[in-house]
């Protein structure tokens, strides 16, 4: 099994290091092969919303710096995002990774069983995505907002929160519940 870990280079706090160690430990125990991508401000620019990845060069961003992340993402069985929780959202660097994944979907619209709109997937299967938000003092409102942003609009995604050592057991238990294998669909 191949795992991709995406982390924010600008927020390597003590809490991050504790969390990172736990996740690496859990993946090593299972004998998974792990690739780590640490994204800094200079590594990946923000999406400019030009939609060229849909209508000019389908499936690829016209700016070259996202290609290797998207390739690693699609070639992994599991992708784990370690994101600082900022204003209840992903940090800018992690959000840039997510925004720049737009080429992995198709431009068209369809209606999901619950009546909401979505884009059809471009590929037949995707890695399982696990999003772990971390921070020393995440307020109750920001925790809830982070869960709503990530879970409310997506199926097939696992979201965990980590606030420090007091969460060690919770995060290990929750992680162990996840079926670490590719999924069929992104939505």
């Amino acid at each position: 099994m191949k795992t991709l870990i995406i982390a924010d280079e600008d927020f390597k706090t003590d809490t991050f290091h504790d969390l990172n160690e736990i996740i690496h430990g859990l993946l090593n125990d299972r004998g998974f092969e792990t690739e780590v991508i640490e994204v800094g401000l200079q590594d990946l620019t923000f999406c400019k919303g030009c939609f060229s990845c849909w209508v000019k060069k389908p499936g690829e961003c016209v700016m070259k710096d996202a290609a290797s992340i998207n390739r690693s993402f699609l070639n992994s069985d599991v992708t784990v995002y370690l994101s600082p929780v900022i204003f209840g959202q992903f940090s800018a660097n992690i959000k840039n990774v997510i925004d720049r994944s737009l080429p992995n979907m198709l431009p068209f619209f369809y209606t999901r069983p619950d009546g909401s709109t979505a884009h059809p997937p471009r590929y037949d299967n995707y890695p399982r995505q696990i999003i772990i938000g971390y921070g020393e003092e995440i307020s109750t409102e920001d925790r809830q907002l982070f869960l709503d942003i990530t879970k409310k609009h997506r199926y097939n995604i696992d979201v965990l929160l980590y606030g420090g050592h007091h969460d060690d057991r919770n995060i290990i238990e929750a992680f162990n519940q996840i079926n670490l294998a590719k999924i069929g669909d992104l939505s």
Partner: protein
Amino acid sequence: MKNIVFIQASPKINEPAVSQMFLEMAMDKFDESVFNKEYINVRQSISRHTQNNAFELLSRADAIIMAFPLYFFCLPGMLMSFLQDYSKFHQENNLQNNKTRIYAIVNCGFPEPQINLEAVRVIESFSRHIGSDFRFGIQIGGGPMMLSPHVMKAPFLKSTAQSLDKAFSVIAADVADENQISEKYINIEFNFSRRIYFFMAEKGWTSLAKRNGLSKKELYKKPY
């Protein structure tokens, strides 16, 4: 005179931005003889390294009105980066602007306006973090409709245009301290059938592809 700062946070470079159109509609509601209006384009402030000037403006604002698109159900990375940096600037300079009123105008490509809610809540959280007074958000579904001016003139969209106009007037009235605020999250939907909207989008994408020399089939490429 009250300082009103308008923030345009669409990352687009060459294409017309829907956020710009909405922001201009909101700006028109503020009389120049009564308000001092300032404008910040986030992408330009980042590319021209003038973020500090922008932050100075923000720190003196009585009201901040920001318009941006929804990206993956929350703020675009570009705007997150700008707000993170402002929050740092705020902390480093020990600023207190607890009276600054903050408003958000968020538009998205899907027809349902309520999916913008979490993005508005991020602005609410940002306001809390810098000790400002978040007032309300205007959540607009089907924003790209604005890019078809001829469609916008259609009689059946008159009610949509009126709700937009009213929502922006409510911001201006609230800034002027009339406390018109009724709801925290105002949803605006284009009076348009979902089926036709989806059809138009599909036609739009395929005709753009054609212009780039691609067939519809080629839109389904799987490079990785």
